[in-house]
């Protein structure tokens, strides 16, 4: 009897161990081919929910004083989903795992000020660009006058940006920063913290990000954006699973509709982002 139990336990444990460690290597390629073509839209339509992967970041998606989710992307996505005939479901994710979440179908899109890059275009389906973004320099307010476009940085200046971000590309690629020391950190918020604490002099972050973080009453009140200097304009898009052509068509159509009826402009105005909009009304 004892031996039978022991054998059973052994079998169960082997099974768990095998499931636990096996199969993770080739799974991502397999899942992406499963999600291909029109199957993806059928899948979304059938469940009726469009799960939107977000992180909290003002003014795109954030909690207001009452704890309600709000923001430019939140309202924009809600309108677009209305047009597509699906229910938006906002799912907070860890930004570092966004691609895995998408392929695992735990989310259906990433809609959170995602910068369009060639690398992302290759790995995911990307919507029409709907908003422009640029990189700005954030420095201590009392030192802002020391920086100007005609005076490139010297070796005593430490520049900080988020790793693998557009800010990092600027810090490494732009001549203006060529002589400066560069440090990479794991988030834009940490880049600001470096400048505030004095461990770095200049943070390069998204303009959109600077709106929410440098507002009055924040802990970064003593930091400021260097005026009249911006770098590397880039575009925001919505990412969906690769090769989901039908979902992409529906999404782009819906975005155009929300732009045509003027709602997109209204929402952008509310969050002070109107100048950055890219989707034109069709005639």
């Amino acid at each position, binding site marked *: 009897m004892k031996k039978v139990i022991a054998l059973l336990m052994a079998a169960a444990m082997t099974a768990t161990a095998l499931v636990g460690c096996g199969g*993770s290597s080739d799974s991502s390629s397999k899942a992406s081919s499963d999600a291909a073509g029109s199957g993806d839209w059928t899948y979304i339509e059938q469940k009726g929910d469009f799960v939107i992967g977000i992180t909290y970041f003002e003014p795109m998606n954030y909690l207001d004083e009452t704890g309600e989710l709000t923001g430019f992307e939140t309202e924009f996505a809600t309108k677009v989903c209305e047009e597509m005939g699906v229910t938006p479901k906002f799912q907070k994710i860890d930004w570092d795992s966004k691609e895995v979440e998408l392929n*695992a179908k735990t989310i259906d899109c990433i809609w959170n000020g995602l910068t369009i890059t060639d690398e992302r275009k290759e790995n995911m389906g990307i919507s029409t660009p709907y908003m422009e973004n640029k990189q700005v320099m954030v420095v201590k307010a009392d030192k802002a006058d020391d920086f100007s476009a005609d005076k490139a940085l010297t070796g005593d200046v430490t520049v900080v940006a988020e790793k693998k971000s557009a800010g990092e590309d600027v810090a490494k690629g732009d001549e203006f920063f060529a002589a400066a020391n560069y440090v990479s950190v794991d988030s834009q918020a*940490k880049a600001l913290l470096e400048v*505030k604490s004095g461990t770095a002099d200049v943070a390069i972050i998204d303009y959109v990000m600077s709106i929410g973080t440098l507002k009055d009453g924040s802990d970064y009140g003593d930091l400021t954006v260097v005026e009249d200097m911006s770098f590397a304009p880039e575009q925001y898009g919505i990412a969906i699973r690769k090769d989901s052509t039908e979902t992409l068509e529906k999404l782009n159509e819906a975005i155009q509709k929300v732009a045509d009826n003027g709602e997109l402009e209204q929402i952008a105005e509310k969050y002070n982002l109107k100048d950055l909009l890219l989707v034109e009304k069709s005639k």
Partner: protein
Amino acid sequence: MEQFINVSQQLLKGFGENSFIFIITLLLSLPLGFIVSMGSRSRFVPLKIVTKLFVWIIRGTPLMLQLFVVFYVPPLMSGGSFNFPRMNAALIAFVINYAAYFSEIFRGGIEAIPKGQYEAGQVLGMKKSQIFFKIVLLQVIKRITAPIGNEIITLVKDTSLASVIAIPEILMNAKDFSMQGLIWPLFYSALFFLAFCGVLTLLFSFFEKKLDYYKG
């Protein structure tokens, strides 16, 4: 002041998730760890090998990676048709991980009891199970209180790792505030952990005193 209350509420809400993971993990991983320790002491060789392999895999890989595997591998393998809810995935990973560590502590505790005690039991005509439960077990519990306490304190802080599969626990909420321009919530969150661990430390010392009725 209003801001402080709002931040405290959000952090407390996050810490609720941490506490939930902590309690469930503790309740399930202690008994599971005991079963595993029985397996690794078994004289039946295949079971012993499998258990040792299990403990090696679980202790030999980062908990963060195990969280990823439990949550993402099922949907990636099934093309999205099956996945655990986020919290369940976190609980599975935590319970299995901590069971592996606890099992080794149990094994160490049991093996530290001198053979003479078993022999004494046999001389008195006790059955094997009687010897274990009436003589050995209590001494084991006394010996392992300190190392188990250590693991439990570690567990409190490890619960924060659940944020990698987007469980809105306290550190994730605190980081969200830094995206809104508030830095201090991140450091303030430390107080929640300190308070929780403080209470646990008091509990452990109380428990150890209770067990002090004999010198083993």
